[in-house]
């Protein structure tokens, strides 16, 4: 019964859908554009019908039709600098673009408002309506929205969800909307993480470059040598060296009567504490034990890859001997009392921890107003196993595949990431900038730490490529937490691998 209601809704939705009608209006001016819009409309028809279960026959080749974007005036030919956007000139109709994102700091929120005002001045007919929600609730909100068939034009996701967003038909293929020059300016690993089969589905506007930050003052106080000062990524420390340093540090601090300072701060990602963000943090301990240069299908290569080629099986990938060894290292952080077992907010900033497994964000921002740390911060690499591994999954917006205003939504993203705007975004938020030409022009990246960041960014990887990343991630987080709290790594990883495989079965068809 519900089945039928959905089908009826779908048809209703189609009848009232705007694009084809818009297309007819525009036919007078630009028949090429009208055809494109109509093709898009038809494509949407087919995929919507497929969702409703009414006509599953045309769904496959309908996806991806959207890449056939008519090029517009290109960079510089619009009423305002739209960055790398090269699609058609924007509509003259009165429209509202809806944008769902997390709430940032007030300075950052104000920056968005400022940029919208500029955009709005050039295109007074395009109104931008934001919806701000807590970061942790974004996935649920996106799910409820897309499920109900009516979602904002632009939504915020994260690069680890690229495969899902692309395969589920949630995100619009952005490739054709942006010039090749613009796309090739993106750091390649970051662009890859935002892409599936060479098509870019998410707009990688900030990079995540994982590093270890340390507080020189605490090392000095403990009388322990600071982590290696390095300029290239081949000479980082190993997990053993890192753990030895932390043991020495803790020992010396306790001997001096300091019972409050930890060697490593409690993770501040996600919900905080162990197992709060496998993507960006804990996966380092496993995937660095693999090697992307090892022979395909070898245990080493599988450990790095994290999931089978079809993305539907993890047994033999997350529970290899290398992965288990990696989790044993990770477990030592807790059994040796080097880092707290629970979430404690911002210990590193509060000078209650000597090190933080974090991103370059803080170090690159430290000379900025308001971002200056009250202590001397150093930066080194995450522990190197068989390779240096870092996951570059930053937050990234995407355009809803069924938006009525694909051109305008893509153009807005282009505008926010224009040469003039992206650096200010970077400066306010302190995120790693995703385009090389911009980094080259910013003094922050000419420091040794900045240079090293760029080298790391060139060597980062995306999350394991699977459409079931939500399932994978949701199962790995508690598994990692259990290991931190004392569960046997081998047994836990074996069981978790089985549980994830079970979950991924549903994607097989």
């Amino acid at each position: 019964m519900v089945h039928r209601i959905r089908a009826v809704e779908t048809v209703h939705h189609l009848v009232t859908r705007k694009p084809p009608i818009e297309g007819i209006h525009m036919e007078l001016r630009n028949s090429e554009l009208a055809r494109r819009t109509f093709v898009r409309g038809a494509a949407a028809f087919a995929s919507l019908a497929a969702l409703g279960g009414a006509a599953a026959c045309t769904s496959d080749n309908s996806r991806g039709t959207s890449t056939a974007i008519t090029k517009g005036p290109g960079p510089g030919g619009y009423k305002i600098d739209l960055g790398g956007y090269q699609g058609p000139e924007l509509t003259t109709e009165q429209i509202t673009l809806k944008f769902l994102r997390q709430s940032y700091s007030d300075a950052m929120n104000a920056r968005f408002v400022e940029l919208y005002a500029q955009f709005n001045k050039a295109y007074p007919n395009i109104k931008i309506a934001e919806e701000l929600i807590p970061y942790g609730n974004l996935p649920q909100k996106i799910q409820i929205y897309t499920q109900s068939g009516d979602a904002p034009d632009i939504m915020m996701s994260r690069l680890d969800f690229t495969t899902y967003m692309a395969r589920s038909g949630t995100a619009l293929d952005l490739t054709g909307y942006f010039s090749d020059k613009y796309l090739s300016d993106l750091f390649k690993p970051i662009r890859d993480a935002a892409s599936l089969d060479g098509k870019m589905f998410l707009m990688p506007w900030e990079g995540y470059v994982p590093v270890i930050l340390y507080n020189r003052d605490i090392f000095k106080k403990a009388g322990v040598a600071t982590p290696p000062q390095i300029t290239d990524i081949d000479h980082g420390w190993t997990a053993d060296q890192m753990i030895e340093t932390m043991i020495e540090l803790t020992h010396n601090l306790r001997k001096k009567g300091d019972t409050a300072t930890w060697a490593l701060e409690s993770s501040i990602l996600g919900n905080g504490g162990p197992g709060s963000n496998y993507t960006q943090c804990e996966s380092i301990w496993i995937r660095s034990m693999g090697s992307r240069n090892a022979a395909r299908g070898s245990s080493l290569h599988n450990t790095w890859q994290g999931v089978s080629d079809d993305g539907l099986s993890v047994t033999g990938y997350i529970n290899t001997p290398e992965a288990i060894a990696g989790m044993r290292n990770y477990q030592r952080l807790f059994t040796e009392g080097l880092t707290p077992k629970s979430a404690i907010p911002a210990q590193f900033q509060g000078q209650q921890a000597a090190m933080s497994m974090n991103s370059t964000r803080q170090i690159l921002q430290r000379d900025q107003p308001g971002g200056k740390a009250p202590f001397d911060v150093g930066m080194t690499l995450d522990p190197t196993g068989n390779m240096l591994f870092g996951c570059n999954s930053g937050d990234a917006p995407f355009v809803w595949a069924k938006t009525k205003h694909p051109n305008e939504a893509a153009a807005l993203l282009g505008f926010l990431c224009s040469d003039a705007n992206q650096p200010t975004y970077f400066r306010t938020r302190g995120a790693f900038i995703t385009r090389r030409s911009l980094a080259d022009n910013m003094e922050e990246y000419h420091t040794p730490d900045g240079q090293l960041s760029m080298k790391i960014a060139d060597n980062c990887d995306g999350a394991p490529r699977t459409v079931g990343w939500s399932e994978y991630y949701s199962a790995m987080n508690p598994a990692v937490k259990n290991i931190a709290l004392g569960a046997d790594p081998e047994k836990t990883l074996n069981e978790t691998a089985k549980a994830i495989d079970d979950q991924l079965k549903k994607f097989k068809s």
Partner: protein
Amino acid sequence: MIAPAVVGIMVFQYYPVLVAVVHSMQRFDPFTHAPIEFAGLDNYIRMFTGADFQTSLWNTLLYVVISLLIEIPLSLGLAVLIDRKLPGTRFVRIAVIATLAASETVAAIVWAQMYSPDQGLLNGILGVFGLPPQSFLSSSGQSLISVVVMSSWKNIGIPTLIFLTGLQAIPRDYYEAAAIDGAGNFRQFTKITVPLLRGSSVVVLFMSTLAATRIFVPIVLMTQGGPNGATSNLVYYSYEQAFQYNSAGTASAAAIFMLAFLGVIIAIQFKVLGAKDE
């Protein structure tokens, strides 16, 4: 006169349940979350045979039993104290009402800070008394009870007030008569107070059971069901299936099962107590 209520309940309560019943027997496209085919009882079978579900079911029972064990005696004790107007009871009364007024989100944020095994206030206080630090939310053994304590703290206001009103309805001369017969405080309590609070007890039992089965916000905010699934319950299981594992069918099946489960528990309670509605 009942039309608005009945219509409202039909639209906002029964219709979603109906949808859930249908969904619970369907298979969903994991990409679009749209139902694709009738699955019969597959979702239920998959759910019942899953270890996660079994743990959640067992935990839900534990939540109910432990909550009742804490809340009923505690709220009765508090109500008796407040009723007696002993010195300082105004303070207790205000404090209990304050817990009623704090939102669950706020309570979870504050308690998570207090429970922190490494730097939490509770371990700090235990340390002052020379007691070893506890892991609270970070150990499978203590996490469920820690969540219950927090949620009992949050919920204690309602049962206390219900008992209090029950106490205030007991005629004073009963006690005076008993005192003349030489019954002490304890005997007065067991022979007069407890039997006469039967009505209130049923309501307290009912409301506390409902609240204990539906603990959700503290789990999401403090433990995410861990460690080792030790704090996951049926609501959380359903939420996880829906929003993390893209399994709308199983999530609906869990919701329907929970409805039946609560119905059975309440029915048993009423049967055992021999209470009649009317």
